[in-house]
């Protein structure tokens, strides 16, 4: 891809990384933070693909990126499963607590 220096791509990654960090730091909501993590991972992936691209042997970097995507999915699955678990197991308890506090 002539005309775009590697550094520029890296800067795109860096900006994503910074925004991801910012998200992670400021969100108080777990899902918000998970979204921030996705940004961070995407930032890394841009770098992998970019380095792969500019190194002339693109396969390794791209494979790494694929693993990152896959593991991100796994993490999201676990994370949301935990969220779901909490939701399913605590809904009733909270109702009780609220109820008992009314007396």
């Amino acid at each position, binding site marked *: 891809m002539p005309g775009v220096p590697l550094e520029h791509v890296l800067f795109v990654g860096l900006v994503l990384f910074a925004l991801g960090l910012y998200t992670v730091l400021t969100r108080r909501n777990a899902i918000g933070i998970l979204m921030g*993590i996705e940004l961070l991972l995407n930032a890394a992936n841009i770098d*992998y693909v970019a380095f792969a691209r500019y190194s002339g042997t693109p396969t390794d970097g791209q494979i790494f990126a694929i693993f990152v995507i896959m593991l991100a999915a796994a993490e999201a699955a676990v*994370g949301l*499963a935990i969220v779901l678990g909490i939701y399913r*197991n605590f809904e009733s308890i909270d109702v009780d607590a609220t109820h008992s506090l009314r007396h």
Partner: protein
Amino acid sequence: MDLGNAASVAYSAPELILIGAAIGIVAADPVVRAKEQLGAAALLACAAALIAAIGIRLPFSERWLVQGLLRGGEGWLWSRMVVVDGFAVFFKLVFALAAFATVWMSLGSAEVQDSGEEGEYYALVLAATVGLFYMAAAANLLMAYLALELVSLTSYVLTGYRRHDRRAGEAALKYLIYGGVASAVMVYGMSWLYGLAGSFQYRAIHDALAHGAAAPLTVFVAVVLVLAGFGFKIAAVPFHMWAPDVYEGAPIPVTAFLSVGSKAAGFAILIRLFYPGLSEPGAGGAWTTLAGLDWPTLMLVVSMATMTLGNLGALGQRNLKRLLAYSSIAHAGYLLMGFVVLDDAGLRAMLFYVVTYYLMNFGAFAVVMVVANATGREDMDGYRGLAWRGGAVPAVAMAIFLFSLAGIPPLAGFVGKFYLFAAVVEQRFYVLALVGFANTLVALYYYLRIVRTMFLDRPRGDEGVVALDAHNAFLLYFLAVPTIGLGLYWAPVMALAERSVRFFLG
């Protein structure tokens, strides 16, 4: 030696055993009603993996430490994805032992038993152990990342295993978020290393950096970012804050597993990247860092901060699990002392310490579990007069483990600390040694507080009686006897550690 994929299968017996057992247990779960049998199977798998990792010791062979059928020595496996060398095998032994103890503990844990999902639980423990094995063996950023994530993901689940418990849910979520951020930052750092070296192989990274086109700052930035991921695993300051919450929320066997197995694996991965990867071996066991990459100074500060904040944090705790969590943070700091001295003696000491730490920390958590089983309590008051209300054996065992953690002879922990401090003093890191010693003093204080509560305080009568069943008693003996034994004669283990500071560099 550089084996391709097909040839590598034969040499992956430990991992294959664990993977097979994990899958088998999940598959068998619906049909097996007595879940203890699944636990027993997991226990067997751990033992088998341990034996496979040790390999078969030939009576007439010079070489007694070999993995599986690989009697020819050390080398690459799986197209240079992992290595097999003394270092990796040593950690695999520790992980197999840790998994073994974890499963054993789980079998006697009220938190794990009768939850209805023990099958999955054992499978997840085994899966995490597979991750640990590969963490020790990874010689490649991709494998390191993958193995680390395997451990992390299974750990999140195991932490949240008691999902009817508020603390478990919160802990799991925290752990996941924290771990996710840490590993994401790490992956970003890894991308830079890849960019600089054009390869994921540690050796290639080492060569590329050694012939250094890269600006030192960039390498340093990348290394620090990677450290976020590794530091998270060993719970070093400032990546330690998840530990108390997670340790408290997780079932006790899992806590023990995390505090020992996961932490040790973090050290394994750390050492392999920073020593053969980012340093140059020299004569007489000394190492030198690559030019411009002054990570030892950084880690020196991390080490001191970790042990200090860990110990200070533990001082005020009244929940035993939290206290031990902080204590294990502090121990990461002690272990890092061996890490920063850039000498084989330091690594040797770390390896030895990992073994002793395994014994005493698992032991301490085992006692916590015994008490929690009987009384459902984890707070300090639940331990009041433990020795005088039926819990003499757990109390004495706890005292042994705690004194060992404090580093008092003739217990294993003392020997471990002795070697760490010896390495530090030998390399003239006197400030570090003094900080370390000051920390052992603080640590002694809170360990003694527990001992005092158990022995010196009299029970008030509302603490409940602690009975010890044979299963858990045997576990305590299994851990306590070597804790004393290693304090009296440790030459073989030290010899093993010494031989294990061997990295296959290709």
